């Protein structure tokens, strides 16, 4: 009975998801007589979605790998490097996009520096270049973190043996380490491709050309401008099918998550190398480029705006939404992990269903999901408040991330633990509270802070579900932008990023204070 109680949030989630799917499908069936969907009108968008994602994935993989090697060989604090890469990965898209524009635009920092040397500057950070640059920015950080964590887990003795045998690290990398580094990498490539496919905001801000349209942009146009929910849902289903096809490679490969954790701190030291040091600072500079916009933002300090009710109200709403979203996603994830593990223990094939039921949310375009929920709420005579809907939608998108991040640690030693629990007559609830949660405490704290930040920066569902008293910080920034107040928008954006930094930083301080380093 207790086991069912622990599984209840997951079952509740399944029912909600089912309800939303039924709503989408029923609309699809009812409305099909009134709408015409011409697949060929969207073939270009479908092709471009996966083409740009493939190119961005290619650059992310290559550069992520190279960056990780340099970061590793630099010998800098691995926790710091890893936290930095994590932070870059979860930065809000609008921040990175505006930061890149601020640096590379015709009046930007780079142009001004070059003009000091009387050099011409005619680089354009828009269209395909901009899309690939910004999409890759996040995914280079993601890929570099994967390889970096693998590298720091190389045993110290192994490095010592290499040294004592006069084998260079590069030779070992070519002959031996490469195989270890790329073990389980297929899953990371697929995840990268999925992230690169879902880059709606980047396309919206940087495409700069009417030809560069993705499936998500077409969904946006269909729903927001053409009132064509039918095409929006159809395109969402097409994206879902294509993504599921790609993700099927992950689902049968359970190594997807091994790289998220440090197994052991190696503290390996390599001899100082000036080239590695220079490359290290170049990489740090590359990742810090968007942060230069903070200077512009803070120079435009506006006390009146900072103390305005609109701003304070937006902060309050953002915090409320993120708190509820994160709470919901943690409950669902823990419950789903518990269910997933119990299926593993029984060697049941339902484990794959559990995994799919959670990760499927990664593949559904946010706008399609938001629109179906809007349609559902409309049919229910708008019984759900905007706050609840936005929180639930946000929680749906962060739940797979929490689930995947925690899964390897959660199921660690599951077979042995399961036997011990039976022998010692430990109930499922006690197992979750007294064994599982303490075991994953560190990962839980880290992922909660990360998804809290992700949820704070979301600007998708709130554009549909808002009213005069319900705005979030990203919407507040967007409204400043729409009212010619670009400098004020950069000021608020800067404050926002600084707060995100503290939200990410405080949990790691907490973990360090507890000196719980595995």
């Amino acid at each position, binding site marked *: 009975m207790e086991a069912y109680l622990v599984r209840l949030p997951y079952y509740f989630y399944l029912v909600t998801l089912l309800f939303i799917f039924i709503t989408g499908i029923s609309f699809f069936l009812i409305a099909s007589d009134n709408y015409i969907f011409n697949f060929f009108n969207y073939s270009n968008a479908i092709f471009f979605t996966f083409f740009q994602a493939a190119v961005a994935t290619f650059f992310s993989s290559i550069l992520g790998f190279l960056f990780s090697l340099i970061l590793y060989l630099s010998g800098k604090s691995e926790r710091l490097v890893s936290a930095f890469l994590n932070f870059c990965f979860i930065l809000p898209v609008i921040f990175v996009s505006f930061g890149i524009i601020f640096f590379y635009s015709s009046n930007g920092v780079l142009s001004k520096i070059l003009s000091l040397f009387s050099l011409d500057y005619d680089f354009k950070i828009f269209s395909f270049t901009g899309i690939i640059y910004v999409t890759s920015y996040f995914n280079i950080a993601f890929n570099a973190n994967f390889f970096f964590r693998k590298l720091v887990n190389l045993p110290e003795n192994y490095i010592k043996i290499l040294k004592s045998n006069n084998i260079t690290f590069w030779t070992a990398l070519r002959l031996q380490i490469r195989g270890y580094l790329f073990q389980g990498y297929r899953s990371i490539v697929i995840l990268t491709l999925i992230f690169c496919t879902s880059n709606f905001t980047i396309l919206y801000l940087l495409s700069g050309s009417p030809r560069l349209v993705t499936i998500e942009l077409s969904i946006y146009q269909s729903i927001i401008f053409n009132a064509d929910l039918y095409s929006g849902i159809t395109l969402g289903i097409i994206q879902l099918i294509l993504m599921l096809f790609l993700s099927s490679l992950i689902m049968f490969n359970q190594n997807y998550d091994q790289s998220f954790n440090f197994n052991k701190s190696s503290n390996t030291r390599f001899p100082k190398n000036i080239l590695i040091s220079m490359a290290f600072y170049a990489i740090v500079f590359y990742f810090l480029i968007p942060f230069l916009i903070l200077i512009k933002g803070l120079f435009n300090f506006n006390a009146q705006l900072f103390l305005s009710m609109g701003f304070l109200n937006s902060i309050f709403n953002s915090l409320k939404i993120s708190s509820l979203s994160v709470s919901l996603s943690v409950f669902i994830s823990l419950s789903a992990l518990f269910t997933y593990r119990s299926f593993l223990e029984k060697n049941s094939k339902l484990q794959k269903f559990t995994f799919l039921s959670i990760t499927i949310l990664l593949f559904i375009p946010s706008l399609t999901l938001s629109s179906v929920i809007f349609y559902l709420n409309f049919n229910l005579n708008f019984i759900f408040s905007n706050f609840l809907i936005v929180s639930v939608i946000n929680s749906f998108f962060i739940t797979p991330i929490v689930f995947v991040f925690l899964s390897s640690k959660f199921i660690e030693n599951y077979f042995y633990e399961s036997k011990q629990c039976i022998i010692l007559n430990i109930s499922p609830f006690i197992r979750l509270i007294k064994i599982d949660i303490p075991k994953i405490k560190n990962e839980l704290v880290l992922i909660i802070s990360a998804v809290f930040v992700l949820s704070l920066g979301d600007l998708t569902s709130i554009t549909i579900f808002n*009213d005069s008293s319900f705005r979030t910080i990203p919407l507040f920034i967007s409204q400043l932008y*729409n009212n010619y107040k670009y400098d004020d928008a950069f000021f608020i954006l800067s404050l926002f990023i600084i707060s995100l930094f503290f939200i990410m930083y405080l949990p790691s301080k907490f973990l360090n204070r507890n000196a719980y380093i595995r």
Partner: protein
Amino acid sequence: MNLKLLTVLLLFPFQVLAKEELKILTYGSFNSDWGPGPNIEKEFESICNCDLVWNTADSSGALLSRVKLTKNNEGFDVLLGLDDSLITEAIENDLFLEHKIKEFNLDIDWNNKFFTPFDYGYFSFIYDQTKLSTPPRSFDELASRNEISIIIMDPRYSTPGLGLAKWINQVYQNDAIEFWKNLQDQIIITSKSWSDGYGLFLEGESDIVLSYTTSPAYHSLIEGNSNYKSLNMTEGHAVQIEVMGILKNASNIELARTFLEFSLSENFQKHIPQGNWMYPVINLQNSQNEFYSAAPKPKSLDQVFPSFAQKENWILNWEASLGE
């Protein structure tokens, strides 16, 4: 004490104090802290003994899309901010109620039984006079000066983008595709939204940007920067009129009518020039002289209320010029 009497006494003050609600659907920037919405709300609530409740959508196009999808089952009373290009489509979808608001002494010609105009503007291109010393004076000159780079907005996503498509079709009619083709090489960015395109222009990405004749007024009056100017095209400028109407399924039609009447008063209109950065529909030259000086009105083209098919045709003309 009698229980019924006690209940009545307890409820009485709340019944008296309970205010009627007027639910308005508008676009986000109208009701932002810097838009005219909050001041208009104060003015109207001071005379109506009611609560004005705002709901917002992304843009003018998104407003119509939303009420089309829901048939206004959300129960909004007034839709505020519809672009004149969408009026015919809105009427064809049978979403609005006729009203009999008297529209006297307007600055524009207006005769529509479904909609009341509340502001208007002219599409234009904005340039920085310190960078472009001899601005083009006509579309032909603009297209012939290949050195001038332009940012426009995608007409499928943006109201000003659609406005430019309308403007070019008004000027060139059957030769619109040819003109678009001539202009294409100079268009370096086609942004999805006005704010992104305008922001990129301010970052120096182009020489001119599609916006409104009123944009320089913002820079001049708020930032004290008079370098930004609007092109003055000899062919004339396409006009954009923003309107409001009473939605079917409105829960408070009388209050909605009162609001529409109020929208034509000075107490509403005075918040438009430096709140929404558009021209008010009643002449406020005396009280808002600095605004009119900073945003002089250009030669106007005729008003157009396109059907859905005409609008599609404008977009097709633009798409045809893009080539394969």
